[in-house]
């Protein structure tokens, strides 16, 4: 084994590789069970190298790795985030990592143990790349070692500056040699960190192997298969000499597998162990096949506890970032599979959506903000032909006078001001000062040629329904108060502009010019030919007119207190708002309470019709009824206006139609059914506040470019296309993501790597025109197994859900669900065909480790609000609103919505100490009624609401202390407030913490008592996706059904 590693390392060592160590460390290690240590140990000899690099080369890298081991020491701990940790040296204290690894090692790795001795000797003190070479020697000397030696360094550091081959290489390896010895079992104290790293580093190898591909195509076919999404380390499929070793190596996959996987193998099929053994044997024969996929298997009636579940939340694919360190973070861009098929026929065997999910303005944690680059003097460097922005993947040639575009490979001139010498290794000497050449994400300050007009000020315009329902529900008052409280924090002070229109059966304009002391109201009742009185004074600068605006908002609720008007001239009011805003653009917030009944755009109470469900006409309920709204949306988008709809109604309000306004303008739909201020005001206040104050990009356009041979064909989300590939986003913020599918234009890709570049041109709230650029690279692969192995479940599910929802807009719900199921079945069948025969796993379900949750998320998707059931299962408005929301949700939030957290709280509440507060309360349970113990309190959190479930035999003391004295009354009216006792305080603290962790929406807390129908069913039981509820499948049934279908036509 040791040999293998070196070899691999040698191939893989390429600039991109090193960072991956770090990144990979996080995930594989964390996810792996203690057993994983075994693998790690086997590789200790090798691994030290990366770790050793740490001290000399870069503090960053080292910090990162070290951090991981520290965390990973707790096997049960949550997976550390894959992000690069801050530099820390701490990890060295952690002894446990190595300790547990050594014991494990013995039992599990027979072969490796055998080889172990072999490995150790070769380790020699010599510094430099050679240390690694000797290892490989045993098997065969690997020529590639040397060339790649230097790059790895750069990877570790992430800074190209570190690339300098000689110095960096030497030191790390010297260190490594020392480390190697420590790696032997007895050793632990001094090098615990190293070991931790080793483990992680090992898992990182797959990533490295990736790199091979682009560089040495011939190698790739062989080397690729082993590559396991990083979580399961696959046996490297390598050429002949390795086979024997691989046998040994092979064992590791089961061991390395993430918890879910491991447990499945072990627990689920006690009987399956033998088959595994045979599988391993076979693997030795077929070492070039990716066993790494250690196919999960599922027998009928198998222990449901062992089914794969995302109880660790969304585990981001590490391989992506690891392969190409200069890729942008997965926050911003996720590919549905981190490898691009090299031919159309191969792409057609990837039955899931092939594409990307982009969240260009995702919130970055501190110290990872996107660097801002100012190209004032040189102008922004872009490719002449394809207009790609300069990025870390471009190469400089001709002594730095030219650069080659990585997308279209055109040779461009480097402008004089941007010129820098190249050093001996061909890197620019000023690389360290050039974030655009080292970071995956940068922001350029755009010069004047990127502006069609001066950057617009942030503009908020409010269109408020003041009909009787709005007043009576208290909506008007809450809205007025919230707006007023947010005025100080609106972005873009002092340029922010603001304006108001209210409407019932007439349209009311407000003159809030700064010279007035009181706002003037003007009523226009001619709805057929709406006009704007005083067009210049309706939209004012907030800081100048602040007092008038305050006065207006103070008086707004009382002004309409006595209003008895039940009509709504929504269409004309919308037109009026459009006329006022069309000069500047901006954000239009619509508070809508009554179905539009007057003037243009009036809507019928078409309602939900049970008879239509199941017929061809079913979809018409979910599509906009009146083309007026689509036309308005198009006009809004044209004039850079985004529309956010806040729909409140206790009756049908046709969200399907109103939502189009938001859909095509990059807006958002908020839906508050049965709004009552006393109950829902917190939610409205929080969400409106966030909408008004979050960092916002204005008048944006986004384009995603990709290398030759591939093309983005369809886009999914809330936006409008302005040309075939240009998304118009009048307003954009961190809570919105966009999905796109790509296809291969050529039958065969000849390149080794496909590059992507997301470019977002926008005006910041501060009035600066900026271009945010995210870069990514993905290897081209020739092997279908590889495609599946590096799939990113989050992106896949995100794309699937968007496609399914779009499908439900032109077909029946049933068809949309079936299409999801079919895609999953096809994908699993394809994968099964790859492996079933060799491994004789006839009766078992096989799926790639990376997609182990595909079935579960597919089930959850079919049970999600927009797609579930039929007429009776969800109200039409709710369905449509949820659909619009899902179309814009970023990946992580979507996954949480599909498979919410279910956490038991009572144990924690009763516990005396706070010490483990942070860990315990994140322990997620399977979403099934079986998880609910009637003696406990559980919280269900899907990101949009909390449901607090009280077991039937929960001790009254707890209930009393949490709920106060009136704990026994009807829970629907109980509002959770903090009581004067420790337990209640603790509960509130937890809830607060959950809310803070997901601030995009406010989660109102519903209290449910076990057995309290129908509320329990409505709030909780219907959402336990693993259960069989009203004609839907349970998780186990669903798997069986999928499995049968997979086998049917296999």
């Amino acid at each position, binding site marked *: 084994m040791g040999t293998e590693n070196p070899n691999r390392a040698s191939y893989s060592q390429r600039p991109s590789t090193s960072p991956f160590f770090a990144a990979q460390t996080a995930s594989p290690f964390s996810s792996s069970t203690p057993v994983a240590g075994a693998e790690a140990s086997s590789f200790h000899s090798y691994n030290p190298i990366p770790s050793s690099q740490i001290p000399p080369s870069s503090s960053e890298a080292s910090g990162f790795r070290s951090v991981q081991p520290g965390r990973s020491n707790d096997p049960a701990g949550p997976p550390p985030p894959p992000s690069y940790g801050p530099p820390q040296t701490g990890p060295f204290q952690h002894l446990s990592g190595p300790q547990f690894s050594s014991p494990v090692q013995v039992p599990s790795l027979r072969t490796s143990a055998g080889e172990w001795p072999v490995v150790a000797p070769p380790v020699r003190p010599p510094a430099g790349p050679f240390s690694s070479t000797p290892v490989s020697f045993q098997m065969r000397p690997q020529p590639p070692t040397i060339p790649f030696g230097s790059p790895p360094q750069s990877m570790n550091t992430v800074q190209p500056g570190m690339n300098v081959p000689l110095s960096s290489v030497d030191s790390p390896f010297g260190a490594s040699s020392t480390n190697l010895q420590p790696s032997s079992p007895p050793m632990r104290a001094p090098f615990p960190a190293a070991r931790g790293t080793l483990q992680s580093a090992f898992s990182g190898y797959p990533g490295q192997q990736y790199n091979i591909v682009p560089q040495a195509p011939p190698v790739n076919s062989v080397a690729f298969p082993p590559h396991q999404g990083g979580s399961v380390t696959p046996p490297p499929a390598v050429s002949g000499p390795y086979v024997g070793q691989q046998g040994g190596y092979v064992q590791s996959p089961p061991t390395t597998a993430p918890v879910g996987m491991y447990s499945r193998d072990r627990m689920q099929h006690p009987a399956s162990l033998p088959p595994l053994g045979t599988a391993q044997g076979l693997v030795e024969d077929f070492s070039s096949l990716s066993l790494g996929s250690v196919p999960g298997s599922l027998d009928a009636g198998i222990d449901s506890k062992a089914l794969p579940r995302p109880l660790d939340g969304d585990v981001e694919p590490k391989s992506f970032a690891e392969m190409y360190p200069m890729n942008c973070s997965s926050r911003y861009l996720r590919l549905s599979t981190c490898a691009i098929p090299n031919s159309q026929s191969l792409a057609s065997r990837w039955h899931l959506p092939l594409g990307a999910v982009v969240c260009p303005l995702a919130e970055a944690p501190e110290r990872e903000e996107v660097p801002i680059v100012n190209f004032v003097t040189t102008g922004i460097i872009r490719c002449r032909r394809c207009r790609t922005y300069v990025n870390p993947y471009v190469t400089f040639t001709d002594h730095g006078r030219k650069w080659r575009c990585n997308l279209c490979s055109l040779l461009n001139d480097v402008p004089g001001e941007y010129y820098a010498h190249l050093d001996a290794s061909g890197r620019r000497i000023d690389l360290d000062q050039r974030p655009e050449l080292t970071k995956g994400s940068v922001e350029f300050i755009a010069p004047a040629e990127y502006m069609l007009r001066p950057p617009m000020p942030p503009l908020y315009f409010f269109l408020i329904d003041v009909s009787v329902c709005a007043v009576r529900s208290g909506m008007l008052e809450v809205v007025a108060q919230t707006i007023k409280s947010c005025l100080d924090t609106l972005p873009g002070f002092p340029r922010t502009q603001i304006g108001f229109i209210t409407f019932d059966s007439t349209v009311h304009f407000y003159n809030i010019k700064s010279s007035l002391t009181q706002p003037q109201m003007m009523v226009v009742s001619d709805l057929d030919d709406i006009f704007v009185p005083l067009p210049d004074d309706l939209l004012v600068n907030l800081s100048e007119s602040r007092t008038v605006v305050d006065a207006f908002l103070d008086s707004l609720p009382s002004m309409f207190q006595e209003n008895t008007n039940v009509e709504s001239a929504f269409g004309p009011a919308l037109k009026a708002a459009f006329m006022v805003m069309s000069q500047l653009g901006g954000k239009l917030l619509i508070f809508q309470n009554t179905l539009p009944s007057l003037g243009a755009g009036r809507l019928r109470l078409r309602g939900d019709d049970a008879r239509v469900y199941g017929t061809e006409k079913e979809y018409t309920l979910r599509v906009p009824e009146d*083309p007026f709204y689509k036309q308005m949306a*198009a006009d809004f988008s*044209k004039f850079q206006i985004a529309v956010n709809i806040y729909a409140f109604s206790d009756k049908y309000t046709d969200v399907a139609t109103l939502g*189009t306004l938001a859909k095509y303008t990059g807006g958002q739909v908020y839906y508050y059914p049965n709004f009552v201020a006393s109950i829902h005001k917190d939610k409205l206040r929080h969400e409106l506040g966030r909408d008004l104050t979050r960092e916002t990009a204005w008048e944006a356009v986004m384009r995603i470019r990709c290398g030759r041979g591939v093309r983005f064909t369809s886009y999914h989300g809330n936006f409008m296309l*302005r*040309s*075939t590939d240009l998304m118009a986003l009048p307003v954009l913020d961190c809570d919105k993501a966009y999905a796109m599918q790509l296809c291969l234009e050529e039958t065969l890709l000849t390149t080794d790597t496909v590059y992507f570049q997301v470019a977002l041109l926008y005006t910041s709230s501060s009035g600066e025109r900026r271009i945010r650029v995210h870069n990514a690279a993905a290897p081209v692969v020739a092997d279908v197994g590889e495609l599946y192995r590096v799939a990113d479940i989050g992106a896949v599910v995100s794309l699937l859900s968007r496609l399914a929802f779009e499908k439900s807009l032109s077909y029946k719900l049933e068809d949309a669900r079936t299409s999801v199921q079919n895609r999953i079945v096809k994908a699993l069948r394809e994968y099964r065909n790859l492996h079933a025969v060799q491994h004789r796993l006839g009766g078992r379900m096989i799926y790639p480790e990376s997609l182990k949750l595909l079935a579960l998320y597919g089930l959850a998707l079919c049970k999600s609000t927009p797609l579930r059931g039929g007429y009776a299962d969800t109200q039409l408005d709710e369905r449509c609103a949820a659909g619009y929301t899902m179309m814009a949700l970023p990946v992580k939030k979507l996954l949480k919505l599909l498979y919410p957290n279910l956490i038991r709280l009572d144990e924690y509440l009763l516990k005396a100490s706070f010490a483990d507060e942070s860990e315990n309360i994140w322990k997620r349970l399977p979403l099934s009624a079986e998880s609910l113990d009637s003696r406990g309190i559980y919280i269900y959190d899907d990101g949009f609401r909390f449901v607090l479930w009280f077991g039937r035999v929960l001790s009254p003391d707890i209930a009393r202390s949490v709920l106060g004295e009136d704990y026994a009354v009807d829970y629907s009216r109980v509002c959770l407030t903090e009581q004067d006792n420790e337990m209640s305080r603790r509960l509130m603290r937890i809830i607060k913490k959950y809310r803070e962790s997901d601030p995009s929406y406010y989660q109102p807390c519903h209290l449910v008592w076990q057995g309290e129908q129908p509320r329990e069913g409505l709030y909780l039981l219907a959402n336990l996706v693993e259960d069989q509820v009203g004609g839907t499948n349970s998780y186990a049934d669903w798997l069986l059904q999928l499995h049968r279908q997979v086998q049917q036509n296999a």
Partner: protein
Amino acid sequence: MDLEPLLWIIFFLMNMGLIALNLYQIVSLSDLEADYLNPYESSSRINHVVIPEYLLHGAFSILFLLSGHWFFFLATLPAAYINLRKFMKREHLIDVTEVFRVLSVEKKLRIVKLGFYLLLFVLVMTRIYAAGTFSVVMSVFHSDNEELDIRSSILEF
């Protein structure tokens, strides 16, 4: 004078009109595809001529029916039906918000239509010939009547 040749001239002109309208739409769509036009412009251009095209086609069919040209009437009937159906379902106009999603389909549809009209054009030409329209037209030039000889009048200038 026999109406037949005159009728065929009308058919010919209508056919030309249909071909022109279709070509115009196809060009607009291609321009949109190539990013020479924005979707607003493109779809408003197309939407302007959709109704005239449908009306023209309807008139075309009905005229064939009334003039008793059964074969031509039947030939134009399917297209008329498709038009009518699209109109009834309110799908005849290009939806600017979704234009890129339907672009390729719409373009193909119009190209097929264009092919159909071109085929019809050929048929109409043969019928024009058969009906002796040319001779009627040409008779102007070959007229024995000196007064009607345009050439002579032109040449005299």
